[in-house]
């Protein structure tokens, strides 16, 4: 069982918050594109990233709250809520890109990873993300667009982050992979903006 020290928890929170912010940016740009083109799939994509971002912020808030108030119930609720929100977001990606213990004082010092990961929800997320990744791969194969490549890399890294999350000692790696996934999307946004 992997245990996280306070500095590692802080690291995880920062990575999660940065990823959530990038997801929010992608959601904003998708919404802008929707308003411009009236293509409903862009609205679904925007909602997907918004839900994903909300889930990430929810988890950050849940962990902070738990660390401060030592309330494991809130942590449990936020982790399950995040898991469901991710699944909802990934389902929206599949649709839109179709062609996604009571008081434990020592937890302030060491937070057990199983508290941060719901394995059943992770497995469901993996199955849905495999579809999203395959769709983005097919899209890249047919368009050969470098922007499509960034999206494929982003979704692939997101999938790998879920695999890492369910592996022993893989939680920190999963957070880094998740951040890299959103950075790939951020690079894509930046390059599109410079077109």
């Amino acid at each position: 069982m992997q245990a996280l020290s306070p500095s590692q928890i802080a690291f995880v929170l920062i990575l999660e918050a940065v990823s959530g912010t990038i997801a929010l940016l992608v959601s904003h740009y998708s919404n802008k594109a929707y308003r411009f083109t009236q293509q409903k799939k862009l609205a679904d994509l925007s909602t997907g990233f918004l839900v994903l971002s909300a889930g990430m912020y929810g988890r950050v808030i849940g962990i902070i709250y738990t660390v401060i108030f030592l309330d494991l119930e809130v942590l449990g609720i936020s982790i399950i809520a995040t898991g469901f929100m991710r699944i909802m977001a990934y389902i929206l990606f599949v649709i839109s890109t179709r062609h996604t213990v009571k008081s434990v004082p020592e937890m302030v010092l060491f937070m057990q990873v199983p508290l941060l990961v719901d394995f059943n929800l992770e497995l469901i997320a993996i199955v849905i993300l495999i579809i999203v990744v395959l769709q983005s791969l097919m899209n890249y194969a047919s368009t050969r667009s470098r922007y499509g490549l960034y999206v494929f890399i982003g979704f692939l890294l997101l999938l790998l982050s879920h695999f890492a999350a369910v592996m022993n000692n893989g939680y920190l790696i999963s957070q880094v992979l998740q951040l890299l996934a959103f950075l790939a999307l951020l690079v894509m946004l930046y390059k599109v903006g410079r077109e």
Partner: protein
Amino acid sequence: MSRRRAYRSKMRILADMMRAIQSEGEEGAGPTKILYQANLSHDRLTQYLEELVEKELVLESGDGESGRVYSLTEKGREFLREFVKMEKFSEAFGIEI
């Protein structure tokens, strides 16, 4: 590999027309050129050209039926730039606009 496009949204038709106009540079493009390059029927062409002029995206100049020339306004060029960004973004996710 080119993808077969069974349906073009109105937004894409307008963008295709504006691309046809832009490809002719500062001199502007005549209706026939736009009709062929944007692959439109005459009725559709007339309807959409009126709309583009009305929205001040395209400027109509010249006189007489055969002498009409269309060029992009600054607003039109900005619209086209924005469309290209949205198109690249959407295509990256496999969404056609």
